[in-house]
């Protein structure tokens, strides 16, 4: 049984959200659908399950790594190679706070950035289902179904206000 990907394009968010709800009522599973859009819409607007994101967790992890690195620099290295300066203690607390802060933040932000890449599987230069109209602000609903079922979904979507519903091929973006 061969499954194909279809794309329904909407101009407005309301018809798109309605269509998604309708499709779900008609028995299409959430996993079968995917919304692509030129501006960010939240899951509640579209009536879609909340996508899972690891970015905040990654950020926390990065912050921890940065913090530990800072601890190594400010406490570890002076102990490894003691050098005394200006009558200050070998491990000066206030300056260490600064280094710790900067490195923690750096770790966190680097991890956040990296998290976007990991979570979104960036960069991916494989062919993907996409039409340039999306970046013109259209909202696309991608769904996968067998060819037999496709006409049913296409008709339903067209009735719900989709500008066009058509099968899409994965193309080189």
């Amino acid at each position, binding site marked *: 049984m061969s499954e194909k990907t279809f794309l329904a394009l909407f101009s407005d968010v309301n018809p798109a959200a309605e269509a998604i709800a309708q499709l779900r009522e008609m028995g299409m599973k959430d996993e079968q659908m995917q919304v692509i859009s030129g501006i960010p819409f939240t899951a509640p607007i579209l009536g879609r399950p909340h996508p899972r994101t690891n970015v905040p967790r990654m950020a926390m992890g990065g912050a921890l790594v940065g913090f530990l690195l800072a601890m190594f620099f400010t406490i570890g290295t002076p102990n490894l190679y003691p*050098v*005394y*300066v*200006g*009558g*200050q*203690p*070998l491990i*000066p607390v206030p300056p260490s706070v600064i280094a710790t802060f900067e490195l923690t933040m750096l770790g966190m932000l680097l991890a956040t950035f990296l998290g976007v890449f990991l979570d979104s599987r960036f960069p991916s230069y494989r062919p993907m289902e996409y039409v340039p109209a999306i970046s013109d602000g259209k909202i696309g609903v991608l769904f996968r179904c067998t060819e037999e079922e496709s006409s049913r979904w296409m008709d339903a979507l067209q009735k719900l206000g989709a500008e066009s519903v058509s099968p899409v091929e994965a193309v080189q973006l």
Partner: protein
Amino acid sequence: MEKTLTIPEYKADWAEGENGKWGMVIDMDLCTGCQACVAACAMENNISFVGEEDAGYGRTMHWIRIERFWEGTYPEIRMTPYQPILCQQCGHAPCEPVCPVFASVHSQAEQINLQVYNRCVGTRYCANNCPYQVRVFNWRDWPRPAPLENQLNPSVTVRRRGIMEKCTFCIQRIRQAEDVAKSEGREIRDGEVVPACAQACPADAIVFGRLDDPESRVSQLANSPRGKKLLEELGTLPQVTYLLGG
């Protein structure tokens, strides 16, 4: 004489008024401003001369300079006593913590302030932070036409451009004397180490020695009621004492 040196770990351990190891006393009543120390220092430490234009622009490399000011106007004019200014070898040196690469560090063994030429990257923060303005920077590779290089002292690194330098209390002489003393199995005698400036001083205004030895000439002079540290109020704990008045 047996001496135990407690090397304090940091500020809290080292109280004000406590003595370091090496120290200097300069009697301003004796200093005649003759500049012998300036020349001797330059000869001993391979200090570059910079030429007229740079010298006039504040780029001289003197590790020791003699300051004097005028007070009043003619005929009630007075010159303040000549005051040789050199690195005060602070116990709490403001120049040290600000160096990002540890080029300016404290010698725990000698209790003086070291400048590691090879480590210096030339941020010049130490010089800004030195309240005594005794650090000098190699703004260029100062010319030293041949055969002047024959005079260079092999015990002292020849510095190049981009590097901060300053008085070292002639650490090469301190080290030499320590080696000799060690090989002879004894302590360094008072007066055995003499930096070039003190050695040359015709008025004998500069006295150098161990501050941690209460018997030494420098200790006794440093405790004189005439003694005053330069910019004492900053709490830098200088190792150089100036004797004021007569």
